[in-house]
């Protein structure tokens, strides 16, 4: 079917670009490996958990950095958590931003932290958008009667 072929190509091209541009790393592939017939929504479920957790963390970070006296340890704790979760799902650019953020926390550099938070927000919503697009493409392929191509490293 022509439409399936087109969608599959779109999916492959899009996936390739996500990995190529560093939005996703090998860990995302590891997640795919864990998904199977008995757990067909595993990746989607983990990513949804990531979305919820991340948005909560971003709010907590904003609040923590707005305090009269900023508790950098608390800020660092949030970033540490974010670094962990983004690493676990393979959101590489988000993870890298967290690494930079932690350095500013250590230096107690408020300006640096605020800038990082801004960039972190940006990177997070970028990857969220991209993952949602990816899931949408997968759904479209399946609805058109095709199977989702498997990407391997």
């Amino acid at each position, binding site marked *: 079917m022509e439409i399936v072929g087109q969608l599959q190509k779109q999916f*492959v091209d899009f996936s390739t670009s996500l990995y190529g541009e560093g939005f996703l790393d*090998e860990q995302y592939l590891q997640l795919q490996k864990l998904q*199977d017939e008995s757990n067909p929504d595993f990746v989607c*479920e*983990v990513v949804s*958990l990531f979305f919820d*957790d991340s948005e909560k963390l971003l709010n907590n970070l904003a609040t923590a950095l707005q305090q009269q006296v900023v508790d950098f340890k608390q800020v660092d704790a949030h970033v*540490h958590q974010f*670094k962990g979760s983004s690493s676990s799902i393979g959101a590489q650019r988000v993870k890298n931003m967290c690494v930079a953020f932690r350095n500013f926390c250590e230096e107690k550099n408020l300006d640096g932290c605020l800038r990082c938070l801004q960039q972190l927000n940006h990177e997070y919503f970028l990857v969220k958008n991209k993952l949602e697009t990816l899931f949408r493409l997968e759904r479209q392929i399946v609805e058109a009667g095709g199977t989702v191509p498997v*990407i391997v490293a």
Partner: protein
Amino acid sequence: MGLAAAEAQFHVLAVDDSVIDRKLIEMLLKKTSYHVTTVDSGRKALEFLGWNEGNSDEAIFSPKNNQEVEVNLIITDYCMPGMTGYDLLKKIKESAVLRDIPVVIMSSENVPSRINRCLEEGAEEFFLKPVRLADVDKLKPHIMKTMGKETLNHENQDNDKEIVETEIQSQQQQTPQSNINNNKRKSMDEGLSPDRTRPRYNNGLTVMSN
């Protein structure tokens, strides 16, 4: 308990305060055919294992709980609020009832001194996060080691009681066992360089057609 358990699935208790990591480790373990229980703190892990701290200094184990819950391995995150994975490890190794359960530590941070401390305290393995299927495959030998031990312990229970106290003391002074110097060191060596030496993702993608 005993031989009948060998036929059933192995039961792993996973401890992690991150909901995402709990989901991940659960899936990794299920994929390797383990029966999994996940908890979000060290305290809950101890409760699950039947630990009830009574009024005295010694932990009182509820025999009923202990019999219903058979755990063949504990895998725990290191960085957790309240009780860290290391604290949990210590409590387990200090307990005459729990000390034989193999414990594996996971951490997102590659800190050689941290790894050493855990291994010296009795952890079997130290996994860097994110944990992979290849890591989970390493768990079987540790579980199998204790399956044999358990049947022995049942026979020698009375003899072992006195030995237990002195063993705990000498273990704390012991230098790391030689078997630590195999692939467990791998994480430490990798820690010396800023990047982990995992295969890096590159553009050499291939697509498997279905």
